[in-house]
């Protein structure tokens, strides 16, 4: 495994076909090659229907590819069983969705604690609580630990989701339009928060976005068109600036 080098992600000829074998089969990804290094802060852009979400789900082990190979953290995860994929998601990945997706029956603090509670791995509840609380403080929700999601604004809910994605200190956080339904000002603050965690903790982020303005602030921009990578270049402006 070590021979694969330090790449965080290595996709080779990844294909994804929906309804495979059926008359309405549709190939969404036509062989994607992609490499990502630890700590990268990358934007994934492209028109609607270009396969961005499918690629993100494949990278997030939420969907299995129909062809090609995928190495995550040096490990070939292409043929992982459902259980192995679940454990890899839990241990190595964090997710932030467009519609924040918190559990309404749990408080903000509990939502952040949930991933840790699934597999405590020797961590006591007290430590989980402290860690989750610390993250909520870090995203600026000092006063909202015990509020339910429906008592929080959209931006605040997305901050809770960020804290949840980070609670187990993953190597990579996958964000699907994390600012998609937020106003510009809130978007900027959420984006700044992601940038901050990337800098402070070295967490790699792959952010799907429609927002050219935000994409321009990333270190690298990958453009997906019709299920193929149309362009992939470093963004010197962002790297030097900010």
């Amino acid at each position, binding site marked *: 495994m070590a021979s694969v080098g330090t790449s965080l992600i290595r996709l080779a000829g990844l294909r994804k076909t929906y309804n495979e074998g059926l008359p309405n089969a549709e190939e969404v990804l036509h062989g994607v090659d992609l490499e990502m290094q630890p700590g990268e802060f990358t934007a994934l852009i492209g028109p609607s229907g270009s396969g961005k979400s499918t690629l993100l789900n494949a990278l997030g082990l*939420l*969907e299995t590819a129909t062809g090609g190979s995928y190495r995550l953290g040096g490990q070939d995860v292409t043929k992982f069983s459902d*259980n192995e994929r679940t454990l890899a998601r839990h241990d190595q990945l*964090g997710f932030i969705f467009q519609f924040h997706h918190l559990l309404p*029956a749990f408080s903000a603090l509990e939502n952040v*604690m*949930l991933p840790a509670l699934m597999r405590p791995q020797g961590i006591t509840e007290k430590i989980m609580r402290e860690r989750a609380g610390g993250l909520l403080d870090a995203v600026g929700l000092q006063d909202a630990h015990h509020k339910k999601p429906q008592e929080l604004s959209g931006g605040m809910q997305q901050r809770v989701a960020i804290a949840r994605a980070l609670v187990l200190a993953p190597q990579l956080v996958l964000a699907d339009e994390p600012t998609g339904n937020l106003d510009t000002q809130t978007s900027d603050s959420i984006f700044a928060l992601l940038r901050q965690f990337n800098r402070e903790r070295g967490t790699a982020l792959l952010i799907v976005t429609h927002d050219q303005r935000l994409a321009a602030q990333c270190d690298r921009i990958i453009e997906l068109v019709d299920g193929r990578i149309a362009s992939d270049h470093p963004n010197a402006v962002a790297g030097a600036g900010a």
Partner: protein
Amino acid sequence: MTALGFEWTVALRFLREGRMQTALIIGGAGIGVAVIFFITAVLTGVQSDLIRRVTGAQPHIIIKPPEETVAPLVTGDSDQPRLAAIQARPQRLTTIDGWPALARSAEATPGVLAVAPVASGAALGIKGDASRAIVLVGTELDRYLRVVRLDDKIKSGVLHLEPGDVLVGIELAKDLGAVLGDRFRIQSAQGGSDVFRIRALLDLGSKDLNRRYVYIDLRAAQSLLGIPGKITNLDVSVRELMSADIVAGRLRVQSGQLIESWIQNNNFIFTAISNQNIMTLLIKVFITIVVALGIASVLVVSVVQKRKEIGILRAVGATRRQMQSVFLLQGLVVGVCGALLGSGLGFLLIIIFSRVLRNAEGQALFSLDFDYSLVGIVVASAAVLGLLSAVLPARNAARLDPAQAIRG
């Protein structure tokens, strides 16, 4: 959030979140359990009242010598002249040969609780001008008490049988104008006669029995009936009242004697009770099915409602098995809560109706001190039922594709 662990925490939180649904289904399960509880208690009460009334002072099984029959003199060919009619022989007082061995083998028969030797026959009870036809039962009291519970039928006096002592029914005492401690004469059909002192008055469950049954010591009865050292029948009690016929069958094969069970002698009651039991079993089975379907359907709906949440949990690392457990546990909790609620409700029904429903003598039809282990059994079976009901919804939850669930 407590130290319950992930599955329990989420299961309980989901149930709490769907407050109305949860309350309704627990209520539904509770009513089902209450009805099962109630009909079980009522039926047990009614049936045991009926059986007590019918069996009263009778043993469950009686072993008698075979009846004496007249063998036709001429048999076979139709050419031969035949006897037009065979007159049945009058039945004399017959005895069982070698009864101690027979009693031992009967005692060893599976299902038999106890066996007691009895010398029984017709007699007259005479006091002054009054004389009454009676059934004389001579026995060894210690053994007999294990066959027929005379001890809970005592109205006054003590259970004690020396030669010269007698236990009589309350009606007979009244008819003879005798009270506890009085003496009266017993004269058997065989001509034996002696004076006995009343040691106890019994209520055997019906006027007829109270008017006729008289218990004396085995030896005294043997000498009155003119059968010293012999007995006329062995009285047997069984462990399981409703299986008396089966035990009787075993005894019949073994002994070659005439075996009569209480079921045979009261067939209509046995049939009625059996039918009643089948009907109530059916009702219970259907209630159980309805409760199970209710729990299952609420959980199926809950899985659909919580699609998105299940998807998120799966995405952030909950395994299929964990999601399955979350829903199985919800079934378990609903089942157990329903059973507890139902037991309480059932209890309430029993208390209320025990004041309303009375038997012919004005006593409560069923007793409140029924088997409390029933609650334990009901709760345990409801837990299993809840789990089983949740299997299908839990599988649906486990199979949910997280990517699809999150998408919409």
